[in-house]
């Protein structure tokens, strides 16, 4: 729009909105009592943290979901679609791990630790957000297959959740106990390996997935779930004590 079409008053308002405040406010920084800081609600904190999760995580998860949904229509056999979906579910965890490692990777952990919420609360918030994303993704994947294949609900849960839980628990174990520079690559290897093994097992022993054998089948995912919870608790506790600082100080 040509300049002369803008109302002078509007122009002034736009200018003010984009200008840093004048010098008279600068003096306020030196007087403690003059600035009353409004408190931020927990919900607002959660909402803002949601905004700071990297966009690539949301996009990669969405892309993975769309690919798996598309494969459901193109697969010749329903079991093929389920086994492929199961094999790829660990990669969802891999996207999230990059988010959890972000503070450490970019040396932000120290600043985040001494902020009001502390690093452990930030990690818990990120875990909650990413956990919710995983829950939605996996539920949608299970429901999609449930309505489009002959698999029972329990069998589907078993097929899709087992590789996810095993790779998650092993990845968190690696993150907590193996302090290597190439942690994310190691976790990538775990995801590929778990996906491949589960694909082979699901393809080979399709019969075991019948509802009758569910009791035996559910031992590995339950064990993995318990292990995952243990590792998550350990991760949060570790961020409280911040043993990483030892290496920095040395």
């Amino acid at each position: 729009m040509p300049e002369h079409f803008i109302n002078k008053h509007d122009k002034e308002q736009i200018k003010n909105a984009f200008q840093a405040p004048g010098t008279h406010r600068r003096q306020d920084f030196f007087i403690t009592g003059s600035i009353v800081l409004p408190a931020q609600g927990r919900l607002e904190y959660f909402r803002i943290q949601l905004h700071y999760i990297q966009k690539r995580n949301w996009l990669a998860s969405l892309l993975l979901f769309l690919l798996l949904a598309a494969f459901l229509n193109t697969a010749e056999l329903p079991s093929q679609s389920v086994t492929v979906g199961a094999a790829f579910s660990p990669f969802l965890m891999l996207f999230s791990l990059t988010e959890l490692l972000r503070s450490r990777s970019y040396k932000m952990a120290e600043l985040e630790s001494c902020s009001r919420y502390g690093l452990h609360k930030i990690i818990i918030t990120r875990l909650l957000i990413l956990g919710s994303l995983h829950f939605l993704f996996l539920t949608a994947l299970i429901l999609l297959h449930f309505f489009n294949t002959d698999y029972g609900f329990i069998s589907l849960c078993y097929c899709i959740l087992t590789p996810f839980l095993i790779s998650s628990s092993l990845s968190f174990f690696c993150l907590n106990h193996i302090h290597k520079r190439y942690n994310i690559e190691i976790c990538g290897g775990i995801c590929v390996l778990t996906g491949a093994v589960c694909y082979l097992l699901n393809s080979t022993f399709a019969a075991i997935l019948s509802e009758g054998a569910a009791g035996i089948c559910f031992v590995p995912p339950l064990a993995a779930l318990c292990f995952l919870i243990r590792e998550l608790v350990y991760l949060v506790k570790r961020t409280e004590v911040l043993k990483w600082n030892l290496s920095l100080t040395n």
Partner: protein
Amino acid sequence: MELIIDQLSKHYGRQKAVNNFTFTMTNGVYGLLGANGAGKTTLIRMLCGVLQPTGGRINYDGIPVTEEAYRAELGYLPQDFGYYPDFTALDFLLYMACLKGLPKQFARTRARELLSLVSLEDVARKRVRTFSGGMIQRLGIAQALLGNPKILILDEPTSGLDPRERVRFRNLIAKLGNERIVLFSTHIVSDIETIAGKILIMKNGILIQSGSLQEILSALDNKVFECSVDLETAKRLSEYCTVISLREESDCACLHLVGNVPPSIHAVPVSPSLEDLYLYYFYEESARRNSKMPEYGI
């Protein structure tokens, strides 16, 4: 407002990074001085709650360091801090404001004001990864001030700043110290000399001296000398004494040195500076040699 540090210690195995550090701080600017490895950063990290002490306690008006209420009152600039590379300067401040518990609208206003305060308003929308070292340091200072902290802890804040910014920053710290506790560590003796109301000197994890500039310099009364000697004597003296400066002239040398005894009968005692004190405490080899030197030996 009192920040009480009581018998604070941090041990790494047998190594005592900080050992029984006890001090009470009230409003004002405190300068923490010490050589590399003296334990300054370890102490600062414990004060910020990012490092767990081996022993002792830290309290701010009865609030322990581990509480959220303590961290809400804290502004911290680490010696070496990172940033998410995709953040602009404004994004970085907004992110830190979120972690400090400031609502979004308020944070936006405050972030813009602080960027203006540290002369970064023109690059508010530029990515931090394109910034120079000095600009990153200024951004770090801005984030430390976001929550209007009552305790401001700055680890080597002036490193990487050019002389003009250093002066600006020194003035800023001096003003901030009127209403809050400001603790800053540095190797730059002149920074401490100019703005610190009280100086804390650490050596091998121990607080060896504290007080105002005049108080701590009194330890060096009659221990700083100047003398003009021939070049041969100057060479011999520099082996025995802590020579702070040596200025060679045509056939003689003017020495400024620290020692327990006058190095020569011609030596004149002069008023000590903080740099003299620093060298007196941290020039260990010389000090050891100095103790072997006979009184009026030359």
